[in-house]
C-alpha cells in the first residue's frame, strides 16, 4: 500500500493505542484538531478523550506529565509540535527524562516517546526550522530516531513506543507528504540500525531525513558518470550505528556525511570522529561533511534554499574526495 509518512505515523499511533491501553497521546491541539501537522488526525474519534489529550501551551508540563506517567507505568506519546520548542522544555528532556533512571540507580524505566516536527525548507525562519536532534547528542539516556520513509516511520514509531527508554522522535516537516510502500502488516523497525538504501562501492554517504533523498539524487547523478555511491539512511541518530557505517567505509574507503544543520556539535561530527577513530586505515580520503552553513535558518527563499544542502553539494564533495 502506498501511503504518506503522515499516514504511516498516524497508523502506527493508532495501532499502538489499539494494542496497549497504557498508551496515550498528549500535546497541544493533538486531539480536537488532530495536530497542527495532522499526524494525530482521527485518533480522538477512534479512541476518545480518555486516550488523546489536548493541553495548555505548557511544554514543560507536557513533558513532565509524560515522565510522571511513565514512572507510573504508562506509555505516553507527547507531541512538541516544532522541534525548536524542545528548547522551552529542555530541562525536562535532558536533566530529568534522560537522567531519572540513572540517578535512581535503575529503579525505573521511562517509556516516553516525544514527537517533534523537524527541519527547514518551509520558510518558517529561524525559530521554526531547526533540526533539533543535535541539542541532545551530548546527553546520555535518550534515544533519537528520525525516519525518512513511511515504512521506517511506522516501524520506528512502534519501536519507540515499545521501548522502555525515552525516545525523541523527529518527523521532518517537509516530508509528511512523502510517499512510499507500507506493507499490509507493517513491521517494527529496530532502533539503532541504519539502512543501506542504495548499495555502492566508491564512497559511503550517510544521511538522515530530508538529506536521504538528496543523497540518492547525488548517487543517481554520479552513477551516470560511473561513480557508485553507497547511501546509508541512519534512521536512528542515537545510538549511532557505527557497525553498518563502519563496514561500509571498510568497503568504499570514503565517507561523506550529509546533514541539515551546521557542523558544530552535530551527529555528522560525532560520526566522523568515531569512524575516523575506528577505521582510519580504511580511509582513502578525509571524510567530508556536507552541512548547512554556520548561520540560523534564514527566511528569504534564495537564502533558505542555499542554506539547505542539496544534491549538487554532495556531488561536489564526492568529486573532491574521489578526484573525479
Amino acid at each position: 500500500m502506498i501511503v504518506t509518512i503522515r499516514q504511516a505515523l498516524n497508523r502506527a499511533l493508532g495501532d499502538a493505542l489499539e494494542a496497549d491501553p497504557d498508551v496515550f497521546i498528549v500535546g497541544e491541539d493533538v486531539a480536537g484538531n488532530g495536530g497542527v501537522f495532522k499526524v494525530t488526525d482521527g485518533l480522538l474519534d477512534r479512541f476518545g478523550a480518555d486516550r488523546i489529550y489536548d493541553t495548555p501551551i505548557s511544554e514543560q508540563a507536557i513533558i513532565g506529565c509524560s515522565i510522571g506517567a511513565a514512572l507510573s507505568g504508562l506509555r505516553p506519546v507527547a507531541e512538541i509540535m516544532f522541534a525548536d520548542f524542545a528548547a522551552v522544555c529542555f530541562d525536562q528532556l535532558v536533566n530529568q527524562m534522560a537522567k531519572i533512571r540513572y540517578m535512581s540507580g535503575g529503579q525505573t524505566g521511562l517509556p516516553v516517546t516525544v514527537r517533534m516536527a523537524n527541519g527547514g525548507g518551509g520558510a518558517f525562519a529561524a525559530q521554526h526550522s531547526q533540526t533539533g536532534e543535535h541539542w541532545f547528542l551530548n546527553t546520555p539516556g535518550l534515544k533519537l530516531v528520525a525516519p525518512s520513509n513511511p515504512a521506517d516511520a511506522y516501524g520506528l514509531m512502534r519501536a519507540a513506543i515499545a521501548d522502555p527508554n525515552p525516545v525523541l522522535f523527529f518527523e521532518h516537516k517537509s516530508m509528511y507528504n512523502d510517499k512510499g510502500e507500507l506493507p499490509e502488516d507493517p513491521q517494527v523497525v529496530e532502533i539503532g540500525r541504519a539502512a543501506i538504501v542504495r548499495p555502492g562501492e566508491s564512497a559511503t554517504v550517510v544521511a538522515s531525513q530530508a538529506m536521504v533523498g538528496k543523497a540518492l539524487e547525488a548517487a543517481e547523478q554520479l552513477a551516470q558518470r560511473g561513480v557508485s555511491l553507497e547511501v546509508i539512511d541512519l534512521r536512528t541518530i542515537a545510538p549511532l550505528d557505527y557497525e553498518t557505517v563502519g563496514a561500509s567505509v571498510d568497503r568504499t574507503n570514503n565517507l561523506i556525511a550529509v546533514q541539515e544543520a551546521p557542523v558544530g556539535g552535530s551527529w555528522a561530527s560525532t560520526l566522523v570522529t568515531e569512524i575516523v577513530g575506528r577505521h582510519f586505515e580504511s580511509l582513502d580520503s578525509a571524510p567530508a561533511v556536507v552541512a548547512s552553513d554556520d548561520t540560523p535558518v534564514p527566511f528569504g527563499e534564495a537564502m533558505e534554499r542555499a542554506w539547505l544542502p542539496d544534491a549538487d553539494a554532495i556531488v561536489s564533495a564526492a568529486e573532491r574526495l574521489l578526484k573525479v
Partner: protein
Amino acid sequence: MARAERKGEDMSETTTQVRERATGDADLLRAMLEIRFFEDHCHELFAAGLLRGATHLGQGQEAVSVGFCRALGEGDTMTCTYRGHAATLAMGAPIDRAFGEMLGRQGGLCDGKGGSMHLTDVSVGALGAFGVVGAHLPISVGAAFAAKYRRSGAVNVCFFGDGATNIGAFHESLNFASIMKLPLIFVCENNLYGEYSPLAKTTPIERLADRAASYGMHGERIDGNEVQEVLETARRLVSRAREGGGPALVEAMTYRQKGHARSDPGAYRPPGELEEWLERDPLTLLEARMLSSGSTREELESLRTQVKEEVDAALARAQSWPEPPAGARFEDVLAA
C-alpha cells in the same frame, strides 16, 4: 549597526507619521485601516501563492495594537508575537518595508531574514516579533529594566495572546517585573483561542486579568475592540508606569477574525460567533462613533480610499524590490 546603509531606508517611501502619535478619531482610524489593508493584502498574497511560510493575521485585533502604541512616545519600546504585524505597524514601521519582509525582499524590515513572524524595526521601538510562545515576555522585562536602570522614563508594552498566559515564561516575567517595579505594560490580547483551542479548554479561570494578583500587580480587563477605551487605558497605565507605579496586566478582549494561520479555516468556532464579532469589528465601531459625532460617510469613504491607495502603493514598491542574494545569508550572525 550598518543600519543606515541598508537599502530599505532609501527605498522606503512610507511616511512614518504615526510616530507623531496623533490620537484623534481620524488618526486612529487611519492607523487601523493601514493595518487592516496590510493584513488583507497578506491574506490575498498567500492565497495567490505569493507569500511563503507561516502567516498569522490579526484582522479584528487592530484596536489593541493601535490604542496601546499610540499612547507611547519617543524612546518607548514594544515587543510582540508572530501575530505582530499590527503592533509593528502601529509603532510606525514603514508599510512598504513590512511588506518587503513578508515577501523576503532586500529592503524588507529585516532584509528578508525574518519574514512574517519576525517583523522588527528597532528604530521605531519595535524590538521584535517572536515565534516561540511567551519567549518575548522576559525580553520586554529587559527593555523595561533598561529604562529603569537609565531612569529614562521610557515604558515597554508587551503584547501576547491568551494562550501564552499558561507558559512558564509568562509567570517568571510578571513576577520579575513586579518585584523590580518595572515600567512595563503586559497586554494580553484575549482573542478567545490559542490555535484551535478555546480558552476554557486550557485555562481554569475565566478572567486572565485576575492572574495579576499572583504578582501583586494591577490588572484589568478592557474591551479591546473599542480603540478609544484602549487608548484611555494605555495612557493611564503608561503614565503610571513612567512615574514609577510599576507594571500592569491588561486583558484586552478581542477576536481573531481569520484562522490561526494560513491553513486554518476555523472549523472549531461555534456557529454565529464570528458573525457576532464581525459586528463588533473595531473599524466598524470607530466609524460608527465618528458618524455619530459628525463625520460624514463621504469623509470616511475617502479616508478609506486614500489609505487603501497608500497601502497598495507600498505593496507595489515592495514587490519591485529584489530578493536578497543567497550569499546574504552569511551576514548578520555576529556583530563585528
